[in-house]
């Protein structure tokens, strides 16, 4: 077993230079790409997410860590053969109709991506039909919705309803989040999961898909 501690530390600190150097060094020493990603990069991002949930890290630090991970991935991408490294699952994400806020949603995307999920981001002000259409097209494992306003929250049950009508509800897990959203609300509208912040979104997504 190799020690990816230094790499993980560099990613957590958002130190791109050090992280890239560590990645290169590990590759030169013959490290397995999959192991490097899982135990180095993803492990680091998991810890970042956990610290973020506690308030020990904030958005800029989280973004820097995610960026650092992306830079390391650039080094690894050419070495990954088709089908060799698999994603943890497909997530379709968007801010609901009538709502233009996207920072929280973007953070969730980034953290999920950092944790090894494949993300399709529909952006903001996404009509329920758009969610349905894209769900049919890419067949995600999880549909994630964000709403920052209590006035736009009702677009969440509307979207779930649209998924149900299209016969897709059973094929996806629905995860919701955003400042006014609560666990109780998620239960009321029959969402499968609620994530209070970007860090917990990763944990929740894994739970939904039975990972770890």
């Amino acid at each position: 077993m190799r020690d990816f501690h230094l790499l993980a530390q560099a990613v957590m600190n958002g130190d791109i230079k050090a992280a890239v150097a560590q990645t290169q060094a590990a590759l030169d020493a013959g490290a397995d790409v999959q192991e490097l990603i899982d135990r180095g990069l993803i492990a680091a991002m998991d810890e970042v997410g956990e610290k973020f949930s506690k308030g020990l890290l904030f958005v800029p630090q989280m973004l820097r860590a995610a960026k650092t991970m992306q830079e390391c991935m650039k080094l690894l991408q050419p070495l990954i053969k088709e089908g060799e490294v698999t994603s943890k699952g497909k997530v379709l994400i968007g801010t609901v109709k009538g709502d233009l806020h996207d920072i929280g949603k973007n953070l969730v995307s980034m953290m999920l991506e950092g944790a090894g999920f494949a993300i399709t981001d529909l952006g903001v002000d996404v009509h329920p039909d758009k969610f349905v259409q894209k769900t049919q097209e890419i067949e995600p494992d999880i549909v994630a919705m964000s709403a920052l306003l209590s006035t736009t929250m009702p677009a969440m049950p509307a979207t779930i309803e649209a998924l149900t009508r299209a016969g897709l509800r059973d094929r996806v897990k629905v995860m919701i989040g955003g400042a006014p959203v609560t666990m109780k609300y998620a239960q009321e509208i029959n969402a499968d999961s609620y994530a209070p912040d970007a860090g917990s979104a990763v944990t929740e997504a894994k739970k939904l898909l039975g990972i770890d």
Partner: protein
Amino acid sequence: MKDSSEQQHVKKKRSIAAPASRKYKTRYVWLNVLPDDLWLKVRQGDTIRDALKKADVELEDECGGLGKCGKCKVKILSAVGPPSKQEMELLDEEELKQGVRLACRTKVTKDLVIQIGETDATTDYYQILKTGHRPLLHPNPLISKRLITLPPELQHEGLSDLDRIKLVMVPEYQSMKASLHCLRHLPDMLRKTEFSGAAVLHDSELLAWQFWDEVNCHYGLVFDIGTSTLVGKLISLIDGVEVAVVSCLNSQIKYGTNVISRLQYLRQHAHTLDYLHNLLVRDLNRITGRLLKAADLEPDDIFVAVAAGNTTMQHFLLNLDPSAIAEAPFTPVFTDGLVVKAAEVGLTLHPEAVLYVMPTRSGYIGGDLISVILASGAFEQEDEIVLGLDLGTNGEVFLGNRRRLMTCSAAAGPAFEGATISRGMIARAGAIESVRVENGTLQYQVIGNISPKGICGSGLVELVAVLLQAGIVTPEGLIHPSDTASGELNARLIDRSGVYDFLVASAEESYDHRPICLTQKDVRELQLAKGAIAAGIRTLMDEMGIGPQDVQRVYLAGALGNYVSPRSAARIGLLPGLNPESITSLGNAASTGASMVLLSKYYWQMANDLADFLEHIELSSRVDFNEYFVEHLDFSASQPDWIPQEQLTLTEHGASVE
């Protein structure tokens, strides 16, 4: 029916223990509310919050009954069931033990006695900005009074009463009109005044004919209609002097403390527009009553009022449906400045009185901001570039001058008003409003000089500024022990498994015997709020093609703007790169702007021109705004490199002293 229910009421009052609900097929139970000893008949299963709202009882709730904010606390004196999960999260052990529950989570299933509010009544006053400043230029009030004597020869010609007045007043009143109400009283008043009286004029309309000496009784009102607070001013139309000022909380606050939650309430409850409108008008009439009493005037003495509020509140005032402002594309019913009969709105003034409602730019750039810009004078010159901030729930920013003027609304969230902060509160009695460090010891000042109940926006900003200076809050916003801070400050840190709280006031010091802490999450909330404002400022500067050094004047308006020290604001990075020396507080600039309109048609015209001229930059969909937002979340980004370092350094005496 009514009688029998009242009898029930009286009967029930004797013994609350008797199971009354069984007698009702409809299943009603009684809720006895102390200390007012209110008896409410409640449908079994309704929440306490529903019952209190229905009865118009004041209750704090920022989340609108979602069980998130934990502020709608009531003490249940009857036997009480186990708390819900949310209550266990939001209330502390001591509170749960004492029977404190959340009104929105507690259903009334049997007769209950509850206690709301504080047990011992201290004078509760609200710190609402009442004063503003601005010397009067271009006097030309919206209403004028002219002394007129109809010559005897005119009295004998076969002319109508109205035509006789017109003849004396030509040329500009050639086409003068008069309302039916005015005409009804005209013949009588002309003869009572022996054809020598004061004509009350609004544009080219005769509103009334008064006695000669009433020319000196010439007043108007302005209303600053805030989402949470209302301010009314009585102003002399002769010399512009503020005769009386009255403020109160907006009664609508029970239905959501911010615009969004109030719109939410409106959308979820059919037919509540009339109700919310009436609630507001009732408040304004109460304010009017108190203003008039202060100056010994009658409603009939007032012929004009000017109202300025955010777009949503102006809709409520006019009983227009603001629902569509709640979500993209944020469509208001109207944006033009309106002149309506005050009586049509329900205001108790002279029956012919006119109400001016300020123009707005959009759903989120309201008449209040137009008034603030008017008061800043930014639109009256083109030599200096002016930046203004109106810091409420939404942080409105404007930048420019007569050449180009732009504005944006940065969703700062309600942190500056104390919501979303664990022990946050609005600036009222008991709020810690300023903080400093003296000889290494933390000192704070409380509004009303009582034991602290919480911390308001200005206190929060100053606290974090002081802690940044001490190194206890890092530039990244982390609360942690500092080598450079005094032992007294470090000793205030409470370790909660690696996450620190900073103790501001201990349980012994505080009003409710619960410690007042700044939590790590509170710092994050402040970072979000100030990041949004700073990013809004940066985005506007980019649009204008200027940098911070090109801004000659910075104005802060709104409650926070008046009480927070410019240096603390600069220290936390609210004003990226701007020189604290260029910052001035405008006080209650919204009412100052409205007063300017009241006293001069010139400014009414200017307000309307301004609203048309103003460029609104929509931030939420902009990539650059989001980038700036992230950049300005850290406190470190706040160090302006072109300002001499000594100007930024806070003294040992902390941030609040000027």
